[in-house]
């Protein structure tokens, strides 16, 4: 078993150097890395959940900082944290139900929260928040008012439950870790199969003799179109090449090898072609909390063209792309400027970039953003691995998603990103 730290460093480096392309790959690798982090974490005698959360948080923070633009990393980290809490909670509930100790533990928890110097600041904060906060959906559903604080109390919190139960607890701890790893495996499985799950819905959306327009290249879109083709749908695809990286060329090639009638057009021809198109289907980089989409550059133009001609604009996104953040500052936080060499040849322009003459400042500025922001009003439909969602329910999708997340994890993300993200509890309320 390789050293986890080495694995983490390696992955950090890859993220930093932008060596992993595509959010699915990133999400999968993040989940796998966190799984090995969890399995390598030395589980203390008691209160394993806190230890696991601690180590996942530590790694997660680093990963998010390494490439803040790749939102899938943060999404997966949050999902894993959520899994740990869920599993811990269900175990605790089971244990407490069995031992009928709920009232006692409630009292002791409060005491612990007050006079435990060992308690980490974060844990105290979390614990106090959870008591101050109006009852979250989670707790309401579980019907165990304050047990959420249990995993945050330090080891002595467990001691108070009595040494007699230590044997039981240790078995519980092993069980916890095992359960968590199982759940993370499921998550990885979900990420792996998100393409197929999305593609399964293809026939419902693509009809006979339709013309589909897409831009650039997305694995999800490819699988989606091919799934429809396999179900004997006959349709045509227009592929906009997607300057400056021209990944549309690759997509066109791939579609043709799979036997689809394909037309390749330039990005600038989109508006001319859109009137012949029945549906626009594109992939996304991330789906934000307000239903806006962070997508490869050029898609906003496509969306506007589609709106002008009342063509449905459909976005395919795996659930690992759903991000609980608002795109307040898309150009700062959520975009990345890549090298101008993708746009033009340095050698040919080297004389324009000679700072020795003239005013000594560059007159030529080459901007190569990676992403576009498509506002929610331009999106007609989201198709995720959990099913198709009517556009008017975008906020609802988001709520579904947020419901599955704990307030602490939301906070965790926003602390790192230093955004104005609304605190987790409020989000749940809204």
């Amino acid at each position, binding site marked *: 078993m390789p050293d986890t730290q*080495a694995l983490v*460093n*390696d992955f950090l*480096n890859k993220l*930093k*150097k*932008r*060596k992993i392309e595509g959010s699915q790959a990133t999400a999968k690798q993040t989940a796998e890395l966190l799984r090995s982090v969890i399995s390598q974490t030395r589980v203390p005698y008691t209160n394993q959940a806190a230890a696991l959360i601690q180590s996942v948080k530590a790694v997660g923070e680093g990963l998010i*900082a*390494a490439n803040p633009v790749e939102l899938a990393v943060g999404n997966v980290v949050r999902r894993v944290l959520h899994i740990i809490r869920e599993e811990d909670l269900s175990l605790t509930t089971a244990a407490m139900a069995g031992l009928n100790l709920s009232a006692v533990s409630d009292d002791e928890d409060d005491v612990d929260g007050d006079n435990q110097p060992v308690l980490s600041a974060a844990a105290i904060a979390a614990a106090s928040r959870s008591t101050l906060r109006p009852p979250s959906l989670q707790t309401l559903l579980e019907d165990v008012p304050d047990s959420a604080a249990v995993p945050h109390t330090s080891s002595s919190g467990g001691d108070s439950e009595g040494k007699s139960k230590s044997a039981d607890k240790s078995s519980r701890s092993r069980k916890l870790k095992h359960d968590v790893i199982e759940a993370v495996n499921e998550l990885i499985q979900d990420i792996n199969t998100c393409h197929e799950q999305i593609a399964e819905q293809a026939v419902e959306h693509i009809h006979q003799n339709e013309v589909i327009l897409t831009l650039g290249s997305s694995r999800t879109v490819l699988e989606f179109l091919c799934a429809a083709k396999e179900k004997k749908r006959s349709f045509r695809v227009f592929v906009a090449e997607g300057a400056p990286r021209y990944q549309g060329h690759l997509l066109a090639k791939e579609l043709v090898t799979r036997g689809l009638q394909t037309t390749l057009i330039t990005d600038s021809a989109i508006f001319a072609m859109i009137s012949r198109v029945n549906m626009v289907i594109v992939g996304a980089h991330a789906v934000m909390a307000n239903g806006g989409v962070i997508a490869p550059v050029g898609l906003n133009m496509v969306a506007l063209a589609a709106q002008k001609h009342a063509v449905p604009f459909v976005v395919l996104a795996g659930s690992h792309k759903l991000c609980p953040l608002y795109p307040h500052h898309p*150009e*700062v*936080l959520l975009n990345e*400027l*890549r*090298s*101008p*060499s*993708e746009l033009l*040849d*340095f*050698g*040919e322009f*080297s*004389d324009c*970039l*000679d*700072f*020795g*003459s*003239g*005013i*000594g*400042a*560059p007159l030529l*500025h*080459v901007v*190569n953003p990676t992403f576009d922001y498509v506002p929610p009003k331009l999106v007609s439909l989201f198709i995720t691995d959990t099913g198709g969602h009517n556009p008017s329910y975008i906020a609802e999708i988001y709520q579904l998603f947020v419901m599955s997340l704990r307030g602490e994890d939301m906070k965790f993300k926003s602390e790192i990103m*230093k955004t104005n993200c609304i605190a987790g509890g409020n989000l749940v309320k809204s």
Partner: protein
Amino acid sequence: MGAQKKGATARVSEDQEELARNPLQAILLADSFATTFRPITLERPKVLLPLVNIPMIDYTLAWLESAGVEEVFVFCCAHSKQVIDYLESSQWSSQPNFSVTTIESHNSISAGDALRLIYERNVIHGDFVLISGDTMSNMSLTQVLQEHKERRKKDANAIMTMVIKKSKPSPITQQSRLGTDELFMAINPVTKQLLCYEDKAERSKGFISLDKTLIADNPSIILHNDKQDCYIDVCSQEVLSLFTDNFDYQHLRRHFVKGLLVDDIMGYKIFTHEIHSSYAARIDNFRSYDTISKDIIQRWTYPFVPDILCGSSAIKVERQGAYRASDVTLSRSAHIGSFTFIGQGTKIGNDTKISHSVVGEGCTIGSNVTIEGSYIWNNVTIEDGCQLRHAIVCDGVIMRSGAVLQPGVILSFKVVVGQQFVVPAYSKVSLLQQPTQQDSDEELEYADNTSGTGELRYKLNGDIATDLSETAYELGTGGVGYIWSVFEGAQDEEWKHSVAPIPTDKLVKLMLDKDEDEEQLTQDGNVLSASGELKADSDDNGSEDDDNADSRDDYGFFEKEVEATFLRAVHENVKVDHAVLEVNALRLSYNMASVDCAGAIFYSMMKLAVESPHHSASELHRNAADIITKWQKLLKSFLHDIDEEIEVILKFEEMCLESAKEFAALFPQVLHLLYDKEILQEDAILRWADEKEGADESDKVFLKSSEKFVQWLKEAEEEDEDD
């Protein structure tokens, strides 16, 4: 199936080979062995100087790491302790799969010495990347390594592959955008072999010479002047042993590359690899520091850009290429322009304008400050109302209120500029005094540490009044630091390598010079180089006879040239001997006979006589006499026999008819004069007269007018015969 299986096994064996190979190694020279960054490099090694707020060596190491290099040997010489300390405390000491080993030396004075030392250590076991610690790149090494290996398999003498990149030099200054001289490379377009490398082409001559065997040996050669040497070399082990064998190799390019190219005894070959979409450049001087900083801010080096390299310290890119750290204290009225970097913890006051600049960490900038195109490092204090244009300001500098830095100024560490003081353009200011002896280019940037720091302390304490007053004198009231004087001869060159853009008047001057040169070149054609040397061109021989019209034109040009030469000789009092030489050179290059020269010179002389002011015929005669007397020797040296003398008379005749009719009346007198001066022999005149006897009436005008003189000559001859 069989074939497939075979393919599979072959791949497996290849993989094994791949596994068995040595890890890719790199030698990083953390010393430029040059003095271009003085005075800054007296206190800190060049590789640790911040480039957009990150030490240069970090860019180089980050690139090496991402390009798949596993082992780097950092060779430190000047300030080796600082480099080693930095590397030990940095992230590089704890990277998995990437080891950084330092090699320290104190007596190496060149790249050659460094490589010899590394060879002795015996640490390099295969192909390696040779790079200096001031090189930025984001290229992938995979392709160049593969090319290099494949070439090596075919030809064991292919020991080095140089990375080059297209970059046009400025047509006016003839230097690249990195401030280096225009580079000429001759490359075989098929094999990519480097055949000639010339970075110090003589500008005045405007040509470079190629060995003619190159042309014989290679079916085609392309001569490039628009390629930039990236100073990234993939080398085989032999390179190290070559340095050891040739202990006089010092400089990587000037000695090693040129040595190998010129000396073909060993038969070693150098190849080139051109990169297109990736970036690579080396910081050689202040100009390239400026250029590469701007390239980084414009993200050509992506992903090696500040916001990604810094990572956690949260630098964000805003519109118009403005990079800003998260905790900058910025006044509401301050204006941060485009392409600007503001580091952590920096405070900026009211109405301050900053554009195209880099401001480091922990700086305090007052109100109403203007900063334009400047590089301000860490912990600098700039008080209200200062103005900085195209300057480099090192750590800990204090600029008192109202101080002004003119373009091209370098302020080294902890200098203090006094109130309202204007630091003149291109000056370099340091707390250390300028080393007294003039350093050669080869000298290493090695500060005499003991004396340096001693002096520093003494300066800072400012105990001694005389000393303070001296520095105060140099940098205004309250200023501390010495302004370095520019070495003799380098004064003119200062603008070339400075951070400041080249001033317009310089550009205009250069442009005019160039136009003149070009004019001269086109006018002279292949005639004369400026030095008056001669470039014989024998090919013209044949073509000339083919076309009569051509040769007549040639004569016309020739005549003009001779006239110009003669006039210059007259006006500049050139010695007759020299004038003779020049005319001779012209004769050879235009492939003329001495008859033509005589005619042309005589024509020029007469023309001069006519053109000089005169009022009457007698005055004109006197003019002609003066000129002939003075320049008779010139004329005579082309009059070897009678034919030439006759030509002169004919020429004179022609002139009197056409261009200089004033002489018509004076014809006999001038003829007599020429006879008197022994320029024309009587035989020549008589022959001329004889020839003219049979001519048309119209042609005989001058014969008739000089009949008396001819008659007299004949009589004299007869008398002689009688005797």
